[in-house]
C-alpha cells in the first residue's frame, strides 16, 4: 500500500507543532487593551492584597476606559503573558492614565516605609523567575509628592523597583499618555541587563496603608512592541 499520501499531512502537522509557539507569540504581541467593553477584562485576573479595589470599564463622552476605585483597599488586575518575551526584542510599553484622587499621605507621621506604599496609579511589568523570590519587577507610579524619575526600592523587596513617571498634581483629572522603554528603565533601575523575560503586566490603585481613597483611570495599554524604523 502506498503511503506517500501520508507524508504531506504528517509534515504539515509536524511543522505546525514546531512553529505553533512562534505563531502564538507572533499573534500575541503587541497586545493592546483599549478597555472598550466589560469583555476587555476577560483576560485579566484579579489579585487581592487587602480587600478588593473596584475595577470597571466605564463609558464616558470621550470613550470607554478602565476605572479603578480604592476604598482603603489594595488589589490589582493581572495580565499573564502566555508566551513570555525578551524585553530586548520588544522594549516598549505604552498606556494612558488619569488620576482623580491621590491617597492622603500627608496625614501620615512617618516619612517612609510600608505605610507610605500607596499610589493612586501603578503599572507593573513583571519578570518572573523559577525562584519567585528572584523575580524582578518594575512599577511605574504616579505620585504627587515624590520627584520625577525617582527610582527606589519597594519596602517589601529590593527586586521591586518603583519609578515615578508622573508627579504633577496639576495633571489631576487629565489624561496623560505614557510610552516607556522598559529595557532602558530596567537597566537604570537594576544596573544590569535583564536575564528574565517579561511574564506579566498588572494595574493597581491602592489606599490600604493610608486607609484613604484612591481613584484612577487606565486606557489603551499596549504591551510589547518596538519602534518601526
Amino acid at each position: 500500500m502506498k503511503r506517500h499520501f501520508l507524508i504531506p499531512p504528517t509534515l504539515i502537522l509536524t511543522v505546525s507543532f514546531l512553529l505553533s509557539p512562534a505563531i502564538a507569540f507572533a499573534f500575541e504581541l503587541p497586545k493592546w487593551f483599549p478597555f472598550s467593553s466589560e469583555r476587555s477584562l476577560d483576560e485579566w485576573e484579579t489579585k487581592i492584597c487587602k480587600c478588593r479595589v473596584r475595577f470597571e470599564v466605564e463609558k464616558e463622552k470621550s470613550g470607554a476606559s478602565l476605572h479603578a476605585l480604592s476604598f482603603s483597599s489594595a488589589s490589582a488586575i493581572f495580565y499573564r503573558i502566555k508566551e513570555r518575551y525578551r524585553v530586548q526584542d520588544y522594549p516598549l510599553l505604552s498606556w494612558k492614565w488619569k488620576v482623580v484622587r491621590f491617597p492622603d499621605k500627608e496625614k501620615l507621621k512617618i516619612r517612609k516605609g510600608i505605610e507610605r506604599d500607596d499610589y493612586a496609579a501603578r503599572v507593573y511589568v513583571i519578570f518572573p523567575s523559577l525562584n519567585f523570590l528572584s523575580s524582578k519587577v518594575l512599577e511605574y507610579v504616579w505620585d504627587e509628592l515624590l520627584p520625577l524619575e525617582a527610582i527606589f526600592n519597594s519596602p517589601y523587596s529590593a527586586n521591586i523597583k518603583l519609578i515615578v513617571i508622573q508627579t504633577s498634581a496639576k495633571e489631576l483629572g487629565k489624561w496623560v499618555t505614557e510610552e516607556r522603554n522598559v529595557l532602558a528603565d530596567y537597566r537604570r533601575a537594576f544596573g544590569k541587563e535583564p536575564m528574565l523575560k517579561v511574564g506579566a503586566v498588572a494595574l493597581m490603585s491602592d489606599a490600604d496603608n493610608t486607609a484613604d481613597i484612591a481613584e484612577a483611570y487606565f486606557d489603551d495599554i499596549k504591551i510589547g512592541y518596538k519602534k518601526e524604523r
Partner: protein
Amino acid sequence: MHKPNRRRRYFIKSGLQTRYLRLILTAIILPAVLFGACLYYLIFYLMAEQLGIPESIAYNITPVLGKINLILLFGLPVIAVAVLFWGLLISHRIAGPVYRLEKELDKIAKGDFSLRIKFRRKDELASVAAGINKVLDKIEGKK
C-alpha cells in the same frame, strides 16, 4: 525468673551492618528528601503564582518561608538522629542473626554436631536456624 534474651552490642560485624545501615538510610532519606524538596518548592511556587502581585508575595510568603526554614534548621538534625537510630536498630535485626549464624556454623563445621542454633522467635533467619537444627538432629540420629 527467665531473663529476656537481649543482645548487648548494637553494632556488630561492622562491614555487614554498615552496608545494611547505608541501604536503609538511603531508602528512607533519599525519597524523603526528594519528596520534601519538591513539595516545599511546589507549594511556595504555586502560592506565589496565585498571589501574583510581588508585594503580596513578599508580604505573605517571605515571612512564612522564614519560619519554615527556621523549623527545618532545628528540626532536621533531630529527625536525622532519630532516623539514624532507627536504621541502626533495623540493621541490627538483620546483621545480628547473620553474624550469630556464621559463628555457630563455624563450630558445626569443626565437628561439633551437638550444637543447636538458638535464635529469638522474632529474629530474622529464625526459620533458617530451625532448618539447620533439624538437619543436625537427623545427622545425630544416624550416628
